[in-house]
């Protein structure tokens, strides 16, 4: 399968992981078996790392909040940032971790938690790592868009029912 077709499969799945293999094959004009084996291969190669539901927690009873932490660190000789990253991402509280260019080194996004849990995680787990120089914790107040999708209730189709 050419790389363009692979890319298209990934783009479709990224938007809607529930899309069936038959549908993907029809939409891209590919053979069903080819699509199946290609997806299996990409799962094995860890190109497709998992399938998630995209949830708007704000619409549930859930009261927990999300935090984004800017982290400055002193990288270790010879080991660079990877060793520090490893120390951080192993915490189950960490949902995402990125190495950044610019004014600070890591962006840490925490799994939704209570204010108390976040405070305790930052002070007793993150700030105490030897290489961590400083932290700046930001709380998310509202989410409008994630994963390329708007979290605002989709508007109704405003078109007339039949238009020539």
């Amino acid at each position, binding site marked *: 399968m050419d790389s363009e077709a692979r890319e298209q499969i990934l783009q*479709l799945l990224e938007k*809607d992981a529930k*899309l069936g293999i038959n*549908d993907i094959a*029809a*939409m*891209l*004009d590919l053979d069903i078996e080819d699509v199946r084996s290609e997806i299996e291969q990409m799962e094995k190669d860890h190109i497709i790392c998992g399938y998630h539901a995209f949830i708007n927690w704000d619409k549930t009873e859930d009261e927990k909040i999300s935090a984004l932490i800017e982290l400055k660190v002193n990288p270790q000789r010879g080991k660079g940032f990877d060793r520090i990253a490893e120390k951080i991402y192993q915490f189950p509280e960490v949902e995402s971790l990125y190495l950044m260019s610019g004014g600070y080194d890591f962006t840490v996004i925490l799994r939704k938690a209570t204010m108390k849990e976040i405070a305790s995680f930052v002070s007793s787990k993150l700030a105490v790592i030897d290489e961590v120089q400083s932290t700046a914790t930001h709380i998310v107040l509202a989410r409008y868009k994630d994963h390329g999708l708007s979290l605002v209730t989709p508007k109704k*189709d405003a*078109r*007339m*029912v*039949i*238009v*020539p």
Partner: protein
Amino acid sequence: MRNPICEKIKKIKPSGIRRLFDIANEIPDVLSLGVGEPDFDTPWHIREEGIYALQKGRTFYTSNSGLAELREEICSYIKRKYGLNYDPQTEVVVTVGGSEAIDAALRTIINPGDEVVYPEPCFVSYLPCILLADGVPVPIELNADTEFRLTGAQLEAAITEKTKALLLSYPNNPTGAIMERKDLEDIAKIAIKHDLIVITDEIYSELSYNGPHVSIASMPGMQERTILINGFSKAYAMTGWRLGYALAPAGIMEYMLKIHQFAIMSAPTVSQYAAIAALRNGDNDVRMMVESYNMRRRYLMEAFREMKLPCFEPFGAFYVFPDISEFGMTSEEFSTALLKAENVAVVPGSAFGECGDKYVRISYAYSIDTLKEAMGRMSRFINKMRA
């Protein structure tokens, strides 16, 4: 009181989709596949340009033919697409949608009694606009055997001494048919031989799925006898902005502008500013939408194959036009039954000309989820009918 209505308009039949529209409108959660406009919002950067124009108070008339900047962008777009040169000063008019351009083009060239040949099924406005221009409509009935392409032989057979013009529209609404270079070459030769003026409505040109669209205006000897119509509605999802344009040799455009000038003045100013942004920075948006339409098109074709519903493969616009003649119903009966049984609205082919009566028009300007649900219902309906 005397009858206020003139004879000409009395003779024009109301739109064939009216009845179905009225029924569909009564049903609360109707799943519609009946819409002839994109489901996408106008890309945000284009809308923003419109908002900015309002903010800046650009709320005055423009020159009759449209903003000079927009006319220049239109000409460079046409040059880029088809290699055709048009003078932005004298050979372009910005219109209120492609629809106004069709009406003005016909009124510019038709003398009472002149025949206008045009392939059917076709967009609903052609016949009434020809009548309103005092022309004589001469439909050429096409069918799925030729993939709804107009052949030279069909055209030749329809031409008489009174034929003045050919009205073409590819990619086609309602069939989704396209005409490729070789098809157009045949038509161009005949148009030249019989000295016909060609009005070509290419509003769906960007929505071509089998290589880039070819304009008949780019055939040798054709530009001088062609009125080329296009617009922003379909390519940039801008239907409500009401903006189209026509290109024609200065000798025709001079007169077409008279009609536009006195009937319309100028196209909406805010829309014109937004359209400049569309032409300058909209290529990626078009590509993204075309890719999405193409996936849906293939999805529907596969769904029909599974239903064993005959349908030629259309390569343009956002319509498929399956053949429903096996059910022994008119297209309106079929559409009404489908609507009542499964709450799915499609448009009867007869709305686009009598020869469309074996077919229904299904639009894929809908999300895959909607199409999936609709195909499930349609398949259930068809199976019941066949049982």
